[in-house]
């Protein structure tokens, strides 16, 4: 049984899943959404982005939807991606896992605050 590629879930893949939680996006849209949600800390390059998309597609965590035009980016039709229910589930379990770390960090007084 070959080891699953997304175990543990790479940070880039997790960010892509999160970026698609709200709406379907094309590649560049994902990149910008990820940059937004990480305050500009993570800027996915094309290679990393499409490698991750490739893997996520294979694992059926995201799916391709029809080609559409992005009104903001001219008339070229782009491939959009959508989060599948498996993808949503995985993103949730990863978020839970990270939340667990946060609780530990707070218990050890490394992190202050009560939002977890």
């Amino acid at each position: 049984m070959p080891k699953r590629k997304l175990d543990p879930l790479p940070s880039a893949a997790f960010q892509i899943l999160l970026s698609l939680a709200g709406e379907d996006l094309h590649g560049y849209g994902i990149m910008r959404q990820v940059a937004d949600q990480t305050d500009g800390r993570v800027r996915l390059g094309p290679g990393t982005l499409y490698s991750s998309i490739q893997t996520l597609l294979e694992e059926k965590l995201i799916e391709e939807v029809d080609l559409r035009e992005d009104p903001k980016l001219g008339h070229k039709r782009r491939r959009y991606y959508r989060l599948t229910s498996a993808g949503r589930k995985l993103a949730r379990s990863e978020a839970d896992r990270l939340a667990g770390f946060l609780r530990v960090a707070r218990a050890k007084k490394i992190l202050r605050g009560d939002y977890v």
Partner: protein
Amino acid sequence: MSEKIYALLLRLYPSRFREAYGDEALQLFRDRARDEKGFFPSLRLWLDLLADLAISIPRQYGYVQPALIGVSAQRRLAGVPAFHVLQDESPRPGALLFGSVLSLVVLSTFWILLGHGAGHAGMRVIASGQLPGSSGFSQHQAPQPNPHNAPSATDRAVGEVSKLDPADRHRVIDGVIANLKKHYIDPEVAQKMADELLAHEKRGDDDAVTDGEAFANLLTKQMRDVSPDRHLVLIYSRDPLPQNATGPIVGELARYREAMKQQNCTFEKVEILPGNIGYLKLNSFPDPSLCRPIAMAAMASLNHADVIIFDLRDNRGGEPAMVALMAAYLFDHPEYWYNPRENTTEQSWTLSPVPGNRLADKPVYVLTSARTLSGAEQFCYDVKMLKRATLVGETTGGAAHSGVFHRIDDHFGMGIPETRPINPFSKSDWAENGVEPDVKVKAADALPTAVKLAETKLHKN
């Protein structure tokens, strides 16, 4: 333009990835390039892209299609090597060409890096004082076992050079002549030597010599035929010579400091023997900037002795300044202190009298052996010439090393005497024959002999 560059870089990815996502990747690049204009945004864009290439290309090549994993897992038998085939198409000629150019670049980079690293290793080895004829009473000749300095097999392998051809020989001769003209004390003699070297080369006297060491010896002989100067020497080293052979290397200095700390600055024994005989066993003349307090304390603890025995049988030299510092205790007035490395300067006089010192008129014995070298020989030679001490033991090793070392290339360097110090004793110094003791006994018997001599002398008084 930049889009074309990125399109080229995309070719680094496996064709399967390019076919699936090449257009989209390029489109993403276009989108970013359009949105991120200006110097800093585009700089950031390119940095992102390069980092991205570095991370994702290896990942893509390590990537195995799920179908293929299944196939190879089924077919694979224990102990039988298997290959994963990532692509079923044969590589394009362009890809092959690109691959070979890339391999060449990587190989040559490795080669350069290796050569560079080996150069540093060689520097370490030579800096530890193994270079014959290098400058002075190197403190690194002090007896400190240091495993880091052992030349390894790799050092030697890298230092290996092919045989000398006429062009190599000419280059070395040019280097020798340039150094002679620049550094030799007597310009006329330097010119004569240069002419002689070139005449020998023209006559073909050098043609048969292809071995580096033999060539170095031959040129040394040719130079000395003009001027019989034993400090003038051409040296060949199989290991690459350091770029700066005259200064100690920082790491060496740190090791030296540590060693001095651990060994009490090589003051091995300081004690009063029966009969109030002060005995000092000193195994080097360490750097006074580190060891002056210990030296002063040692001498102070012997201050009330009636006789002093300096045991230099295991002393392989060190700093001329420490030699002079120790000698200062033996005189009640500044005494000319001959150092073959320097012209007469203030330091050529001992800093006598030392305040509070009572040893200036006490009998002194110095124990010597064939292992007594360099700076220790200077001490022996000078106290003997000044008739200040009785030397007991063996003839010393004979290592004056008074030339200054000049690097010619990676393997050749030369020692050139740059100063002509005044030897007040108008005799040859100890470079060739060592210093003869006054009382010749085996090194092992030197201490009891000196003690006996001291006791006899004290009883007479």
